């Protein structure tokens, strides 16, 4: 298949992830949608790496995976902490940033 198809799929997954972040109320699911976005970026990287014929994109994709893992770890830690303190697990309820 042409590389262009893979890029189109990547864009589609990315946008689906964006809409998920905007629409869902549970921080857990929002994190999942963030994962979607990261994976879309990974797909694009791998596609370009194939296109150019060098491995830089693949290495980058591995690093992105590492970062995603870290972020998931910390994010889930925050959600667990929220749960521990009996805060509602709902981004619409948590409005401390309101000015």
């Amino acid at each position, binding site marked *: 298949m042409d590389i262009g198809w893979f890029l189109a799929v990547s864009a589609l997954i990315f946008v689906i992830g*964006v809409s998920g*972040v*905007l*629409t869902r*109320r549970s921080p857990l699911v*929002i994190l999942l949608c963030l994962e979607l976005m990261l994976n879309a970026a990974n797909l694009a990287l791998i596609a370009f790496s194939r296109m150019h014929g060098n491995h830089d994109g693949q290495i980058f994709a591995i690093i992105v995976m590492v970062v995603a893992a870290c972020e998931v770890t910390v994010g889930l830690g925050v959600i667990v902490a929220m749960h521990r303190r009996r805060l509602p697990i709902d*981004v*619409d309820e*948590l*409005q*401390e*940033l*309101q*000015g």
Partner: protein
Amino acid sequence: MNAVKLFAWLTLLFPLAGCIAVGLVGRKLPGRGAGYLGTGALLLSFLSAIGTLVKLQGQDEHHRQIVAVAWDYAHTTGLDAQLALLVDPLSVFMILVVSGVSTLIHVYSISYLDSDRGYVRFFAYLNFFVFSMLTLILAANFVLLIVGWAFVGAASYMLISFWYRRGTATRAGIKAFVINVLGDVGLVLGTFFIFRHTHTLDFLSTFAHAKEAFKPGDADLTAGCILLLVGAFAKSAQIPLHTWLPDAMEGPTPVSALIHAATMVTAGVYLIARMHPLFELAPSAADVGAVIGCVTLLVAGTIAIAVTDLKRVIAYSTMSQIGYMIMGVSSGAYAAGLFHLMTHAFFKALLFMAAGSVIAAMAGQQNLDKMGGFRKSMPFTFGCMVIGGLALAGIPPFSGFFSKDEILLMIGDRGGWHWGLYVAGYVGALLTGVYTFRMIFRAFLGEPVPEALELEAGHLHHAEVHTNPADGEVEDTDVGFPGADHHIAEREPSMKLAMGTLALLAVVGGFLQIPKVTHVLDSFLAPTFADSKFYERDPTGGLIAFGLVLGAAVGLAGIGIAYLIWVKNPQIAASAQRRLAPLHTLFVNKWYFDEIIDLLVVRPAQWFGAWAQQTFERVVVNGLLVGGTTGVVRAGSSAVRAAQTGFLRYYTLLIVVGTVVVTFYFLMNS
């Protein structure tokens, strides 16, 4: 040259040093020490003025206009402002009169204000006033003149409202100051009009360039001179800026004597005399001055016949006599006008001093209706008052006779429409005789009032409860109000000394300039006025004789009328008042000038102020500008705050929107 400059500076600086010295250490001196200190400073100033005179006369005839520069303030863009004194016969004449009469008034005040809690303050203010007046006179350029002018106005305000806890006094002080400021504005604007063409602020340079810079009758020059006249009229209490002078009698009597008779009110006369080259190039402005002077002398004379407050009669008399002086110097009779200035200083100060003595005998009461019969109990005061009155009425051989007739002579000599002024001058002289002796007869002749009887018995009347004689308000004698004691001339040697000296001068002062016989003033002032086209006039002998005879006759007629009405047949006064009731009302109400000014100026100003506060301030400034600005900021920040919802998803949406926009931008530009 240098000795002249030195003496001139000393003349100017002694009163300043006196003011500072009295202000700083006066309170520590015992008894009347502050008074002696202030008087000493003035005496030194007078001696320096004499020194200046002597040294100036020692100079060559053609080098008698000396400029003593101390400091050069600005020499940029054609503006030559310097701290400089102009020592010439005119200024030396004026400083002699001012410092001499001031010294005598200081001597008088040493005892007159003895029990007043503000004694030290009084002498500090008086010295400051003399310093300001001397600055005004000795100024060599417009800048220093304006500075002196403003200081004199300030000193006048401080001294009129000297008894500052009296409501009437503070209001009078404010009135005087406001009208003076109006004059200041006129003076400054007039200076500007003249400066625009001559491009110099120095007097001698201005006068030298005047002929090239202005054609005769130039519109700018006429406007500038009329504005200068506005300043002169405000300071010299001419119509229509005269309403402050009668109210200024709220100040202590020495203040009235010094400022409002002998010195400050003559500043306008000095101004016109000093600016005579400019006025001669703008004859319409000079004519305005002459006409206003004439109107003032008549109106003031009529008012003086009707008012009943002793000091106010003398105040209106001052206004009238200054009208003569202004009429004189506006018509080219410079030496005559200044001569009258000098003699007027003598006899008017004398009259005020005597009036002060009478008022002290009446324990502060100033109403003529309540006075009478002081002749036996106060002979010295009576004598001084009569001498002053005779000089004022223009009876030979007293000084007022010669000076007043000199003015009218020179005016008549100009011919043309000046004959009208001539006639008015003599009508005014008649009025002068009437009101002066009305005052004297009512106060000293007739049945003695209780205060006079008390004094004859040897006891000076003392009010139990001190009240303001104008409105009856009760006052205590603490600071800010007049002191508890009163001092009359018969008991105070310093008052006698001052009044005696002035009486002597009032008698012999006229001999300086007897027509055709002595020309002391004429020749003395010649270097200043030599460039004037009016200076070398020589009136005919016939006119001189006619004037002298007419003057004497008119003066005596005035005295006679006064004697008839107020001594011989007292009921004529009452019946005349009834028959001429509308005229009397007009005179007693001072020709309603106060009411007219209130209607035309004060009410609109108050209305404007109220409108500004209620409408403009509230709606425009607070509402629109302040409120509007804050409203806009608030609305803007509310709009921005709407974005701070606290919802995570909104923020994410904003990020997405931003990304879309930025990507779009870059796509477009690629």
